[in-house]
């Protein structure tokens, strides 16, 4: 199959960004607010200023880390049929919602998420064929702070059999998350072989690594569980007002995080989630734009050069409605970003400032179209079909041909996209895509059953949670 793909930055341009990032690390350095990490860096030969928590990182450490980092990373799932590998061959998709706000598809409200919202989203995510993994869908503000990330993870694992990726901001959280995940999958060694969870470490652009998150990521590294390094610079605000400069800041932060991971545990599984954002210069808030897709693709090329897995791009929209804007924003931000096969693309369930349950079926459909497009097409004797063309001849038709029977199911068939004539559409109730999405969502919630975690394991996890509450609250 010949597949569409893209490489738009030249080798020279990619090398400039790489080289620029090395210069930043050597000259400007980064602030790492974790003594543990600073000790690792100092021991490896980096120049550390403990008072200001500043470190400059020599390029040999970067090169060693790039060498050591595994080029394929497994993301396993509680239900093994949902296991997958990040090996640059295929894109997978993540529901990367926007907690704590919900855009309620039924009422149109923007409100804080509830525990019920979170479970509904997980059930729908579990059902949809293009959701491969999930982030937290919402935030239950009734849960005490120190237990939040631990419970985010467990709630997700309870209500979907798919891989969970979340936040972890302290060593204690990391330890409990890892303990619970190990209990579910069958032990620490099994968790290393089949990590059913991963964690995200967001840098603080420009050039800062938070202490708690860094310490937590070191726990994950030592447990052999994947860490996704997620720099989030923003053009003109948290990084230079130029795209290349922003890509340099992103890369420098990533490489700093990578070096720490590989020093903590050589061979630690890492993925890069480069988020190069743009801001609304009126308000300072991050905004959707063609530039963010462009930068994500460009950094993707650099990640290819490193051979590392990426989580980038996806279905972004700033709309607050299940409307045309949501549709076009999501589709036009997804498809270009997939042309360089990110291992994971995100955005499912995100809508404007919050999470939207009902948009997930629309996201699923857009991905379905994109995946068919990316499959490409085959040119060979069979597909050139010269004999069939000759057989049918001028003015004939192909519908009754054996060749047609053999091939017609290769064509894309939509799940929810309406393509009827006006009369048929009207006859079916003149429904908008928003209505169809809501109906499909209700149907999924009414009929889909998630395979539960066995009761004995749930009991074991309850004991771990009690231990966590006793220590942390």
């Amino acid at each position, binding site marked *: 199959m010949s597949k569409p793909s893209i490489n738009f930055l030249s080798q020279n341009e990619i090398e400039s960004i790489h080289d620029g990032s090395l210069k930043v690390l050597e000259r400007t350095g980064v602030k790492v607010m974790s003594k543990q990490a600073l000790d690792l860096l100092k021991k490896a030969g980096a120049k550390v200023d403990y008072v200001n928590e500043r470190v400059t990182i020599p390029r040999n450490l970067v090169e060693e880390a790039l060498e050591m980092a595994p080029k394929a990373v497994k993301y396993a799932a509680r239900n093994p049929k949902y296991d997958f590998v990040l090996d640059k061959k295929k894109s997978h998709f993540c529901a990367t919602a926007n*907690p704590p706000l919900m855009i309620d598809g039924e009422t149109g409200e923007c409100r804080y998420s509830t525990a019920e919202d979170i479970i509904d989203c997980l059930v729908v995510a579990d059902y949809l064929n293009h959701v491969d993994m999930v982030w937290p869908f919402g*935030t239950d503000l009734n849960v005490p702070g120190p237990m939040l990330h631990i419970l985010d993870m467990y709630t997700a694992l309870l209500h979907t059999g798919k891989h969970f990726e979340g936040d972890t901001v302290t060593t204690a959280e990391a330890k409990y998350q890892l303990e619970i995940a190990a209990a579910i999958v069958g032990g620490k060694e099994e968790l290393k072989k089949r990590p059913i969870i991963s964690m995200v470490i967001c840098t*603080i652009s420009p050039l800062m690594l938070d202490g708690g998150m860094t310490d937590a990521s070191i726990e994950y590294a030592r447990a052999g569980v994947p860490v996704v390094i997620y720099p989030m610079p923003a053009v003109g605000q948290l990084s230079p*007002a130029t795209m290349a400069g922003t890509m340099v800041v992103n890369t420098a932060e990533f490489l700093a995080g990578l070096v720490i991971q590989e020093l903590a545990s050589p061979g630690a599984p890492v993925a890069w989630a480069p988020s190069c954002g743009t801001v609304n210069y*009126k308000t*300072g808030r991050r905004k959707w734009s063609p530039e963010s897709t462009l930068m994500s693709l460009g950094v993707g090329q650099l990640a290819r050069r490193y051979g590392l897995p990426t989580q980038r791009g996806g279905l972004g929209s700033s709309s607050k409605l299940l409307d045309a804007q949501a549709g076009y924003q999501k589709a036009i931000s997804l498809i270009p970003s997939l042309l360089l096969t990110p291992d994971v693309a995100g955005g499912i369930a995100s809508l404007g400032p919050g999470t939207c349950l009902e948009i997930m079926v629309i996201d699923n459909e857009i991905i379905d179209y994109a995946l068919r497009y990316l499959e490409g097409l085959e040119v060979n004797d069979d597909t050139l079909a010269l004999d069939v063309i000759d057989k049918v001849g001028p003015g004939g038709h192909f519908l009754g041909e054996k060749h047609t029977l053999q091939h017609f199911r290769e064509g894309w068939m939509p799940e929810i996209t309406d393509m009827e004539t006006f009369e048929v559409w009207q006859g079916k109730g003149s429904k908008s895509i928003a209505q169809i999405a809501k109906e499909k969502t209700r149907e999924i919630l009414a009929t889909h059953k998630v395979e539960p975690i066995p009761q004995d394991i749930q009991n074991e996890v309850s004991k771990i949670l009690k231990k966590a509450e006793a220590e942390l609250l």
Partner: protein
Amino acid sequence: MVDLTKIKDGVVGGEVDEVGEMVKKAVEEGQEVKKILKEGLIAGMAIVGDKYERGDFFLPEMVIAATAMKQGLKILSPLLKQGDIESAGTVVLGTAKGDIHDIGKSIVGTMLEGAGFMVTDVGVDAGPDKFVEAAKEKNADLIGISALLTTTMVGMEDVIKALRGAGLKARVMIGGASVTQEFADKIGADGYAPDAPSAVGKAKELVKN
């Protein structure tokens, strides 16, 4: 003699060093300090605010103009007498405990200073005690609390409780990526603003009452 309208233009154009030099020279020339402040610095910021409202200026111009204004103010402050400067109000700003994100708060601080507020920034990862201490010391009219993370946002309520518990009547304003008016109402904050520019308007409104 330094033309004060040139100082005003320098503020509007974000010419940080030039504004500093011109203000210094104007002072050395014996021009009235209050006049330099009013016709040079404050007049400049008024134009900046106006241009922002009209959609001609954006955050980068606002921030650099406020920086220029502060450069001039640094020179004038020690020379201004009590009552010379009509401060718009005294504000204590900080990022909530456990949170080290500070760009939002810093831009709010810069813009409040540009609008004539006296701002004390207690920094990031600031617990209720830090806010209360600074509020008492500066006799603050307004407290601004910022948080990016949902986990730290919940700590804003602790700050409000601590302030009220200490008998402080300062108004409280909150902001942050996940914060909404609904949340502000829930925790008893007096105000909320979705971004730095509107925070200035909200601050002015809150200190008036």
